[in-house]
């Protein structure tokens, strides 16, 4: 193996095992690699299938692991219409709303976690989740032949509940917040030999997020962007994209560049952005109240590292209200044809704010990370649209309908901007 677990704070080595905490100092474990042993070239990567496994050497995978699920390699879109609307010029969208198999970036982390669950001989996998992770664990457990136990806050969106149950997973609804669910799962993981992907398998799991960063660099033509805008729940993704960029520089796959990292939260759950804006390096927990339930983590475990990632790169953190989230979902859909969930609304809303505040220059190459699909959170838009009255299937009826619609909305006759 060219990797092992190391304590993030005291540096102690823990080998490879299902464990996320250093018993000596209680600090988190991190996967460390022997980078000197990694030989990887752009040409070699280009020859491989378009999925996250093309970066296998940079992931903590068991020896001779043969993945059988093509996860990742989602589109990087040039968002020219959105850019025009928000005062940007060189804005891209990394679109994990279409990540397979369950339409969120969580498919990436689960793929790595389950590879290690198999390696460690575990027959049951589990997670605490705000929804997307639940879907990803349930689906991949079904395909890989694991039993799955999924713990969620009881108030989750119906589509995310159904999208877990359909895969045959055991669903446990907890009457409480995600933070309470997460605490319970820490206790259960203490007692049972289950592979909790985001508890005892977390160091491996979190490495899967790096593939978002590798793909962005490759899709930009093996260049790093100037800025990343990333949604933050537990705060892990933004940290791992930074790690991915640092690794690519280290391996000589991209030129070194100072990338600034910007984090996005919902105002109703903004422990990380609140800390950044007030100059704190530590998190003070919050009780979430936001429609962006996939980001509703009031006590973000990686918050401290997320803050360091932003402040250490000259970045910043912002947050947006629930109404701004809905408007931003609509804005992204109407300009770029991408239907994202509430977390994506947070990212787009914050991106817009950062341009308005002048924190991001229009000429910078900026990538906004869309991490989930709007079809899972349609309830957020429930009151945004009226259902049109049906008309008869007659051409005359349609002509009347068209004239009436034009009189109410004359702008629909205006030419579309190229």
């Amino acid at each position, binding site marked *: 193996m060219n990797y092992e677990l190391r304590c993030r704070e005291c540096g102690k080595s823990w080998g490879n095992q299902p464990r996320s905490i250093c018993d000596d*100092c209680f600090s988190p474990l*991190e996967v460390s690699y022997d980078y000197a042993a990694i030989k990887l070239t752009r040409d070699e990567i280009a020859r491989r299938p378009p999925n996250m496994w093309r970066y296998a050497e940079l992931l903590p995978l068991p020896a001779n692991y043969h993945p059988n699920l093509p996860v990742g390699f989602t589109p990087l879109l040039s968002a020219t219409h959105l850019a025009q609307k928000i005062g940007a010029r060189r804005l891209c969208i990394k679109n994990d709303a279409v990540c397979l198999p369950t339409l969120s970036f969580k498919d990436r982390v689960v793929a790595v976690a389950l590879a290690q669950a198999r390696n460690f001989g575990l027959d049951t996998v589990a997670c605490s989740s705000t929804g997307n992770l639940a879907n990803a664990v349930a689906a991949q457990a079904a395909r890989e032949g694991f039993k799955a136990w999924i713990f969620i806050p009881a108030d989750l969106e119906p589509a995310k509940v159904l999208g877990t149950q359909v895969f045959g997973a055991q669903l446990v609804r907890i009457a409480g917040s995600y933070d309470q669910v997460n605490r319970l799962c820490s206790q259960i993981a203490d007692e049972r030999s289950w592979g909790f992907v985001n508890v005892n398998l977390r160091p491996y799991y*979190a490495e899967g997020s790096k593939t978002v960063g590798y793909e962005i660099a490759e899709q930009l033509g093996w260049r790093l962007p100037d800025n990343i805008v990333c949604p933050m729940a537990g705060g892990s993704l933004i940290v791992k994209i930074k790690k991915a960029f640092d690794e690519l520089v280290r391996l000589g796959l991209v030129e070194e560049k100072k990338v600034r990292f910007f984090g996005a939260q919902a105002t109703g759950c903004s422990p990380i952005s609140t800390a950044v804006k007030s100059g704190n390096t530590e998190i003070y927990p919050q009780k979430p109240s936001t429609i962006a339930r996939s980001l509703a983590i009031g*006590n973000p*475990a*990686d918050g401290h590292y997320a803050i360091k990632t932003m402040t250490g790169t000259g970045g910043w953190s912002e947050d947006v209200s629930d109404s701004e989230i809905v408007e931003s979902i609509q804005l992204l859909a109407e300009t770029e044809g991408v239907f994202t969930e509430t977390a994506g609304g947070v990212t787009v809303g914050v991106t817009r704010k950062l341009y308005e505040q002048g924190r991001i220059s229009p000429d910078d190459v900026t990538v906004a990370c869309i991490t989930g699909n709007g079809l899972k959170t349609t309830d957020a838009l429930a009151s945004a649209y009226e259902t049109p009255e049906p008309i008869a299937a007659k051409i005359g009826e349609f002509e009347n309908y068209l004239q009436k619609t034009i009189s109410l909305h004359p702008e629909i006759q205006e030419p579309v901007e190229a």
Partner: protein
Amino acid sequence: MTITVDIPTALRRHTAGTGRITCAAANLGELFSTLDQKFPDLKPHLRDEKGEVRRFLNVYVNDEDIRFLGGPQYAFQDGDEILLVPSIAGGAPDFERQNLWGSS
């Protein structure tokens, strides 16, 4: 007054396997002092060099994060159940420590 304290598995090797104790501590500071006396090996795992609660240690009182109750100032009530739970973070890039084998 009596409170109950649950100690997570990760720390039990410093408590000779003890997973639960009862004591009469009035607040978090007194609780930690009690634990220090009972289990001297545990002390450095609960607080850092400056005496602050370790960043990745969460303290819950009857299912509520103690930080919502006033933190170290919170006065324990008779029958309070205290939980010490590690916070599960993923860590961060740190190439100084990342470089296991000493070369790049």
